[in-house]
């Protein structure tokens, strides 16, 4: 067993906070975030089923859009890898069924749907 500790760049240290009650984990979020969340929660219950699947897909779409800095709506192999979506790069040919050299988010969705249908039939 070989323990080691490393730190390269070290700047100034932060102050610690102190209060009558210790800061708990998970601690209470700032009041503004709490108020906004409570308004949202009155309008919308926690997601399940298709709405949860939609929220999950939205997370992936946001990552796709972030990688698509040029807003072309499609990514090349290298743009996907460089933009934090190497998952696409690793299975690029399977997603790029049109052999266009670029894939859209709809191509990604179709790939996932086909894979899930195939897995379900196993």
């Amino acid at each position, binding site marked *: 067993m070989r323990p080691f500790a490393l*730190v390269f760049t070290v700047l*100034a240290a932060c*102050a*610690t906070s102190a209060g*009558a009650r210790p800061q708990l984990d998970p601690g209470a*979020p700032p009041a503004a975030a709490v108020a906004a969340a409570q308004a*949202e929660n009155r309008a919308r219950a*926690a997601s399940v089923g298709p709405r949860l699947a939609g929220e999950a897909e939205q997370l*992936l779409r946001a990552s796709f859009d972030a990688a698509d800095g040029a807003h072309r709506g499609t990514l090349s192999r290298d743009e996907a890898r460089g933009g934090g*979506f190497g998952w696409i790069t690793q299975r690029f040919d399977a997603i790029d069924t049109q052999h266009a050299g670029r894939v859209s988010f709809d191509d990604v969705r179709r790939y996932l749907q086909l894979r899930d249908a195939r897995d379900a039939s196993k």
Partner: protein
Amino acid sequence: MTAPSAAGAPEASIFYVAYTADGAAPGTRPVTFFFNGGPGSATVWLHLGSFAPRRLVTGVPATTQTLPFPYVDNAESLIDTSDLVFVDAVGTGLSEAIAPNTNQTFWGVDADGAVLRDFVTHWLAVSGRTTSPLFLYGESYGTVRVPVLTRLLETAGVRVAGAIELSSVLDYNSNCSINLPQLPTVGCAGALPSYAAAGSWYGLASAATPVLDDYLATVRDYADATYAPDAAAWLADRTLPPAGHLAALEGYTGLPAAVWRGQFDMDYDTFRHNLIANTTLGVYDARVSAPVGSALDADDEPSDTFVAPGFRAGIASVLKDELGFTTPSTYVITSAAIDTWVFAHASRSLPDVIPDLAASISLDPSLKILFLGGQHDLITPFHQTELDLARLPAGSPITTHFHAGGHMTYLDDTARPLMKADLVAFYAAALGDR
């Protein structure tokens, strides 16, 4: 170690302590990254208290262990199963942003996940471990951090074999006591079994049965079938249920019906200050209690007041004396990050990471996720975790194990070996399915 962005610009210097086994084949040996939460907490609790090769002895739920806590060889070390890397988030421990970034740059649900993704990716690359099965272990706010990090790593093409979530807060919008001292605006049914466990511990729950797991299963059913709709009605217009329901709650928890009548949607502060007269119960471990006004009650949180000083002193001596690491900088155990943390995530002002888990499973159907927790933890109640997880589709690759114990469940000498067995079985299943 620096965490460089994809473009190669250094973002932050990240402090970690790694334990690696000599002689093991690094390309196939699992590596696990551990993260405490807060946000704003260093990873001292997991590092010094859980599954590293050595650990601090606390003796909880007893409060008789004197300082300094002994630092002993850990019979439940996970080093037999995986290499272990304990990571301090930006602004905690010795981890710091690199200019032009500031710590605040990384003080948010998404920015924190992204910089830790870059750190993990960089660590694996420079350590020659890119083919090692990758595991992530989060505790408390770390159970928000790990699902976000898992999704970002899977998106980047870095496979995560397993994610371990201890004492989970998967949806800040469903944890009824998260906003205390502001009283709950959502139902507390997820917390009722934890109150029952506490009442049972003190011999006050008249309905309690001898086997705790069986008893909590009974209370869980009552919570879902009866208390949840009752609490919803009370939240809507302060309608109280029939007296029989109040009597049932008193029987399950030991908390007098009169207290339920005053605050029917029961937050943990009302519960732990009223279960026993002139006594405060711990938030993290309700089995730890102290007379009001006593030294252990000085912070209104006896379980934290008992445990924290031993860990604060412990990290200083472990870094210097055990690991031989010295620095002129101050190791930050708790930062003020939470005051300015950006909690917004996806379409929510407070994070709900169930969609992150669903997205991660979608990207990698072989991913496995283990949820652990303590039955006497009031701050992240185990049944709330079960309710949150019930949102995932049937057949999702999740496993849950809850043991008698608090928030830092591993501190308990009975729970820690059970958790070790849970972990070993989980690693075997996750590795067998790759």
